[in-house]
């Protein structure tokens, strides 16, 4: 019940927010904040009073028993952290779009909360069919967020986003049906249950193909090279809140899927596929960074940097040892915060100077010292400065991956240099140099400062004291790893 309420509260909040617009234009914002805060409180309560063992809480309701489909939810440390991230970023996104979204606020918060409800569902679902249901649920409202409240080329970007994610989602649906049917043939029982499907023995080719169906869906969402082109467009054109949710949360669903489904369900196939996946990760690290460097649109630059960061995630997931996996989790959270913050900063900049074009910016440090300072802070977080969260993630990923594949790890490590290049280019071109275009509004106000301060503290905390977080996720990861403990090459790191 607790777990279902995590999905129901945002969904109810969505409908309330939608209807409440006629009362007052700001009412949807408060309702959205309230709903997310309530969900956050429930999450924390589950965290505090969770059961022992890897699964803190579970729900298993019958849904469509004829087809072996159940409403089965489960929360472990991994889901918990990602849900916390989702809800926290959701709150920040609502706060950040307080002035940016002035029209149809009710509808906006409806779509935003529905997306978040879908994401939470994705992080909780333990039935493949249910998982697919939530996977699609988060997609459609996001499409509307981009298409309705986005910037100048929003329609094209929204359609591109939709086609990429929908197309890959269909591949996943085929893979889900395939694995269920194979299970049906083997045991005579139709089921979509995660645990029942897990233990199933598959032929090597069958499992490879089914795994690829899942992999492509998650790799598109992640996004991994070469499935990334939807991301820069979607992130650039989305409104600030949309970009924050996209980068901070939606991308993580891809990584989560890889962690939760691809490797545990198909350990052998994943092991065979690991070198290719890691190669894609390493290429993504460098490719995203080079791409980011060349952009003139700030938002696009930040978006491309996500490709680079997610390359580390892919690399770490397929290294599949304790160090790399924990690095992946930290990297996901840190990336969610730091990139989310950068998108908020870009949004604030755009509100003030009405452009995102770096060629028109420059010298804003003098006029907007606080904004520039915070921008610098997050640019530096992005480039992986020790003491900030991203470093812990990247270092752990590299440390773990080195065990699995030293050459690719070294290639990916070169991404650390490339990250400096684009991050500093961003800072330099936007905030330093001669003042080009003046700001039409004063420096950050209290509300904006509060949002940024929260994010700064979070990322600093992540960099300095990541241990509580690591401890939270540890049983969950161990559990995932145990599922294929029989495979020697993928066992926990033993120095």
């Amino acid at each position, binding site marked *: 019940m607790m777990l279902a309420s995590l999905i129901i509260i945002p969904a109810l909040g969505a409908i309330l927010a939608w209807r409440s617009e006629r009362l007052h234009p700001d009412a949807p914002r408060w309702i959205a904040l309230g709903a997310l805060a309530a969900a956050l409180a429930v999450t924390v309560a589950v965290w505090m009073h969770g059961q022992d063992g890897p699964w803190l809480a579970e729900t298993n309701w019958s849904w469509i028993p004829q087809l072996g489909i159940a409403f089965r939810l489960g929360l472990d440390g991994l889901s918990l952290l990602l849900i916390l991230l989702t809800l926290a970023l959701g709150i920040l996104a609502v706060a950040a779009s307080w002035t940016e979204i002035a029209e149809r606020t009710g509808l906006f918060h409806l779509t935003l909360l529905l997306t978040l409800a879908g994401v939470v569902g994705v992080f909780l679902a333990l039935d493949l069919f249910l998982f697919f249901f939530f996977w699609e649920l988060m997609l459609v409202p996001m499409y509307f967020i981009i298409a309705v409240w986005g910037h100048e080329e929003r329609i094209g970007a929204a359609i591109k986003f939709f086609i990429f994610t929908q197309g890959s989602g269909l591949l996943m649906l085929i893979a889900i049906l395939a694995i269920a049917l194979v299970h049906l043939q083997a045991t005579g029982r139709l089921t979509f249950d995660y645990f029942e499907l897990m233990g199933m023995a598959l032929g090597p080719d069958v499992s490879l193909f089914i795994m690829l169906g899942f992999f492509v869906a998650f790799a598109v969402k992640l996004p991994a*090279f*070469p499935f*990334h*082109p939807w991301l*820069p467009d979607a992130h650039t054109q989305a409104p600030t809140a949309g970009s924050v949710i996209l980068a901070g949360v939606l991308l993580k669903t891809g990584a989560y899927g890889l962690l939760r489904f691809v490797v545990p369900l198909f350990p052998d196939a994943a092991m065979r596929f690991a070198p290719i996946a890691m190669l894609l990760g390493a290429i993504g690290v460098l*490719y995203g960074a*080079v*791409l980011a*460097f*060349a*952009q003139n649109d700030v938002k696009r630059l930040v978006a491309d940097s996500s490709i680079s960061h997610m390359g580390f995630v892919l690399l770490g997931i397929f290294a599949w040892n*304790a*160090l790399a996996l*924990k690095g992946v989790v930290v990297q996901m959270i840190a990336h969610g915060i730091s990139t989310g913050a950068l998108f908020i900063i870009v949004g604030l900049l755009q509100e003030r100077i009405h452009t995102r074009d770096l060629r028109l910016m420059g*010298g804003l*440090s*003098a006029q907007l*010292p*606080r904004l520039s*300072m915070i921008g610098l802070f997050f640019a*530096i977080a992005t480039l992986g*400065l*020790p*003491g900030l969260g991203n*470093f*812990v993630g990247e*270092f*752990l990923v*590299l*440390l773990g991956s*080195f*065990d699995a594949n030293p050459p690719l*790890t*070294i290639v990916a*490590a*070169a991404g*650390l*240099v490339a990250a*400096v*290049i684009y991050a*500093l*280019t961003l800072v*330099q071109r936007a*905030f*330093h*140099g*001669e003042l080009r275009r003046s700001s039409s509004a004063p420096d950050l106000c209290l509300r904006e400062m509060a949002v940024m301060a929260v994010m700064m503290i979070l990322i600093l905390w992540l960099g*300095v*004291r*990541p*241990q509580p977080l*690591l401890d939270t996720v*540890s049983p969950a990861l161990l559990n995932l790893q145990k599922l294929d403990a029989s495979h020697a090459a993928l066992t*926990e*790191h*033993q*120095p």
Partner: protein
Amino acid sequence: MLALLWLTPALPLLGFVILFATAGRLPASAVAAVGVGSVGLSAVIALIITASFLTTPPEGDFYRQVLWRWIAIGSFNPEVAFRLDPLSLVMMLVITFVGFLIHLYSSEFMAGDEGYSRFFASMNLFVAAMLILVLADDLLLLYAGWEGVGLCSYLLIGFWYRDPANGAAARKAFIVTRIGDTAMVVGLILLFTRLGTLAIPELMERAPQAWPAGSATATAAAALLLGGALGKSAQIPLQTWLPDAMAGPTPVSALIHAATMVTAGVYLIARTHVLFELAPAIQLAVAAIGAATLLLAAFSALNQHDFKRILAYSTISQIGYMFLALGAGAWTAAIFHFMTHAFFKALLFLAAGAVMMCIGDEHDIFRMGGLWRRLPLAFASFLIGAASLAALPLVTAGFYSKDMILWGAWTSGRGGPALWAAGLIGALVTAIYIFRAVFVVFFGEMQIAARSRYGWRIAVPLGVLSVLALGGGFVETPAALGHVEAFSRLLEAVLPTQREVAAAPATQATVMAIASFAALAGVFIAYLVYLRRVRAATILDTSAVQRLHRFWLAGWGFDWLYDRVLVRPFLWFAQLNRDDAVDAVYDGVAFSSRVSHAYLSRTQTGRVRWYAGWLVAGSLAAIAIAVFA
């Protein structure tokens, strides 16, 4: 008392937090109080700790303070822990003390700048990061400090952000050092993967057990760490960023790009010397790189016009000496030279800064001249610094440390005399270029109006550093000159003293005499060429020499080379790929579907009969399948 150790980095960090959080809303006096005070307090604590450490040495000659466990995953559990041993003690003292003097100097030097608070915030952060670097017990924490100082270096080089050139210099510094840092990260990963820890003492303990001397892994690990050191310490081939880094304010150059941060590489190698001893090839490479760098940079320094760039190349050259010492196995000599270099180079920068402040921020030494009358204090302190840099015998600190290095090179087993010869030539050129600066700037005709306007906050650091630049060397003197061994005995616990060499004290005295002669000769040549302008000096105007001059002025063309080989291809590729080649593939898919749409839509005539015809045709086909199949 040793338990106060954590305060030394924490105080400057607190200063940073205060200045960062208030973001320039504090009055200048409060900013100065916080900025200077935090480092001053830190220096005081460092002194107290030193006193306590020296009077009652802790067991095992080190003190370890664990603050918290940073990460714990299986066997990977780096801690945020400080380790105070003689090596880090020396480093800590120099950093806090010189740092404090430079902060004091800056509080006047930077007065009136709109970024006053930002400046002290960055400087405080730098001191904190540098202290973390030297005090770290774990390579990962060391790396954190290592990157932290790099960040502050970036922030301070680009401090005057309005000029894009400064920004470019700052970026270059960060990127070039980051290349080395990345090698270092890979080195850390390799070390952990093979040895299962990143705690320095355990590493140094396990490495010799795990690897025989000269083993490939040890060589790789040492080479990767060396990569980090080369970047940070501006050694060939990663030296190009340091001359450009002079775009920052002069106190920054003094603190970061002369006294402390750039010597972090030296510290790293000294700290992990066990690894380098296991990799003789790499150790030899350290020596060779050091020798090459010191010569290259010295010749470049000889040809610079910009006051600060002379000092920058000089710094590269002097760090080359330290690398030479490290490569020769004279660990103590390297650290000793680090200390004296911190004193005299900081002094030179601060004096130069004072001079330039008084003449309206003119950097070209050939537009100065005859300034010694107007700026006697600056002149005196610069002269003392120059003398120490040139290693004028007996009275200067630089003499003792450089002599120790040269002696170490001479007696080292690998290529000793060749290294020594390089050091000797370097000493000669060093004396020439620094006294070239002295003569050109302070003697000759007055060319520029100068007003002495520095107060006590500038004068005091100059005075104190002058004393140290002269007297700082008496803690360690060669056998022929009193044989004081306080410094090496202090460091004995950490760094192995050099093998006892059978060479007679007479040899040592001779070697020393030759070096002294070289230094004096250098001063004399500079005098002849740049002050007396003897006839022979006209050779400098010939075209061949001019071409060489331009080549050396440009730092041996490294910038040009890197620009062509690395920067431009990268830019070219990045620009080429701005619109993402992969996206073009997907666009191709979109395009082909658009084309096929255009063709297929022609079948949509909108005419009922046409549709009906196709309907019939389709039905017929279906019937045919049903009937004939």
